[in-house]
């Protein structure tokens, strides 16, 4: 539950305790808590890791947050997640794993930046 939802709930409880709760305010409160009038947005996190392990070090990142593209901090040590598993622990859900078919591309050549995980969260 978000802080906004908690505040709405507390308002409803207070109104109930004071005998001021009306049908209209109850209906509005339920709609607000359910978020029916504010559709959720998908945030997306691209993380490129040095291996296919979710515990491997991240060498690249791109965050799509609130519909905006965001870089990480200039110093990679300050990036929000140093591994994919750190992002998972923070509530991100992996929606795309490194494509193992890329193993078959070429024995000696390397393409692109690391093993790419794509994660999402809804807010």
């Amino acid at each position, binding site marked *: 539950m978000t802080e906004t939802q908690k505040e709405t709930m507390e308002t409803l409880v207070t109104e109930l305790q004071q005998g001021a709760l009306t049908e209209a305010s109850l209906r509005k409160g339920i709609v607000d808590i359910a978020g029916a009038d504010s559709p959720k947005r998908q945030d997306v996190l*691209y993380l490129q890791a*040095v291996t296919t392990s979710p515990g491997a070090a991240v060498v690249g*990142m*791109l965050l799509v947050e609130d519909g905006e*593209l965001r870089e990480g901090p200039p110093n990679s040590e300050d990036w929000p997640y140093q591994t994919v598993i750190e992002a998972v622990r923070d509530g991100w859900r992996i929606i795309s794993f490194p494509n193992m078919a890329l193993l078959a591309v070429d024995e000696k050549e*390397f*393409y*692109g930046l690391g093993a790419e995980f794509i994660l999402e969260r809804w807010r």
Partner: protein
Amino acid sequence: MRISERKTYDCEPTMTDTQVLEFCKNGYLMLEGVVPDDVNRRATKYCDQHSNMEPSGILMEDWFVENVIVHPEAAGAVRSLLGANFHLPILMSNHRVQCPIQTVGGWHVDGNYHYTHELNFLQVFYYPQDTPIEMGPTQIVPGTHLVRNKARFMGHLASIKGAIPTTAPAGSIFLTVYHIWHRRGPSTASGIRNLLKYFYWRTTPPQRDWVTEPDFDFATAQYTGPGGAYVEQFRDTIKVSEMFLWLCGRHKSFQNLGGQSWPLPADRNDLPYGFPAGLPQPQSVEL
């Protein structure tokens, strides 16, 4: 003949074995502040008066060719990497932008790339004005000239560990392998940022005719560079060694036999297995 009418140029090479090898590892070489201030001001003025994207007329200006294109340090580095009588630039591009630009450019490799161990041309950049981080210097990822990519598949790349801004004082020139990953940096200051870009071409087969080091040891030299952070272990090591041997004119003897053979880094007590035949040995080594 006026210097601006010359098609090719020759001069003394300035880079050593170690520096050439470092170029092979990093994919770029920065020469900071080598062009005199009065030339930088004149070049900036020229760019203001010719603000199009391809002010190639500047290559017909003797003062520019003399002080920038064949500047002893820059031309010496080009001579080291491209050999004698290298071809002079015939096209000038200017990545001229009005700062500030809050957004960052997208990572890319320039079009018509050709991934190879050969180095037959150099992409060179010149900053005629101070270009601190606030002026959005080009960013590069050292070592990525060894990592294949396609510009249209790089649009989702953003922050990359190891990427660096080419922050530099006025008069700086930097040489790059064409297909190194790069992008425009974001800028916060106000003003015009010029970034002149041009090419030199090889006209002679490669050979080790730069400043050789008597104690340079092909067997123990460190061939692993920053590209190693992005690829399968030792793959960049092998690519760097192949590129270096090609530049030395020794590509026919290049080989990699796998496992712990040359050119993998190791503290060995003898020549590495698979060490290419015919490579020079340090003068201090008795065979």
